[in-house]
């Protein structure tokens, strides 16, 4: 019944379950909440990245049952046991890589640049950065994890709009 690739993540209050086989890469999770759902990172879910309320809000938007959540007090004994097992190796969330589609660059409204496909990132010293098939670049100029997005754009109120006074 349970797929060995399935994972669960907790912040002590709720647990988020991830079922890779049901993921249709709608990308809702990381477009909405890259601080928590970041496919370029391992583990790709960071439950400390946002409030419980916000995590629930985004998990509820998953169009499939790939991401679901539960209050920890409602966990079954089996689920509690799985939480203690941290040794499992994670799968990569499904991305466009492997297809022949050109690399997709999405400018998120008031947010980062989300890149997906077959690409390389060259750093300021001309060195190649860690390879990935999916990442998000900071566009607000204030990330503390440059060149990647860390969600700071929301805190500083970054917007696509050009200031009216131009200065």
């Amino acid at each position: 019944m349970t797929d060995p690739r399935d994972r669960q993540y907790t912040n002590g209050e709720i647990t988020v379950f991830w079922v890779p086989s049901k993921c249709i890469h709608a990308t809702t999770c990381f477009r909405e909440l890259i601080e928590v759902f970041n496919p370029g990172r391992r583990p790709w879910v960071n439950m400390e990245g946002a409030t419980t309320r916000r995590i629930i809000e985004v998990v509820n938007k998953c169009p499939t049952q790939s991401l679901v959540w539960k209050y920890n007090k409602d966990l079954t004994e089996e689920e509690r046991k799985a939480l203690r097992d941290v040794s499992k190796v994670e799968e990569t969330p499904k991305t466009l890589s492997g297809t022949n589609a050109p690399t997709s660059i999405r400018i998120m409204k008031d947010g980062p640049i989300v890149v997906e496909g077959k690409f390389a990132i060259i750093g300021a010293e001309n060195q190649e950065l860690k390879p990935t098939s999916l990442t998000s670049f900071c566009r607000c100029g204030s990330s503390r994890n440059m060149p990647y997005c860390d969600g700071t754009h929301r805190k500083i109120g970054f917007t696509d709009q050009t200031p009216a006074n131009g200065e």
Partner: protein
Amino acid sequence: MENEKTLFQLLPGGPLKVTGPFQIKGPDGKIIDKREPVYLCRCGGSSNKPFCDATHKRIGFSK
């Protein structure tokens, strides 16, 4: 068949230079018709977002 890789180059204190095959969509989800190279604003200050307009120099962006 080995496809050509897209290159994302972080220009120091400046934009993200993109070359190679890509498709770019704006915040409204619509495809933006642009040929390579494109320079995407990273400093947050461009008046021509998502593209660079060299504002990074004026505001002293250094990352």
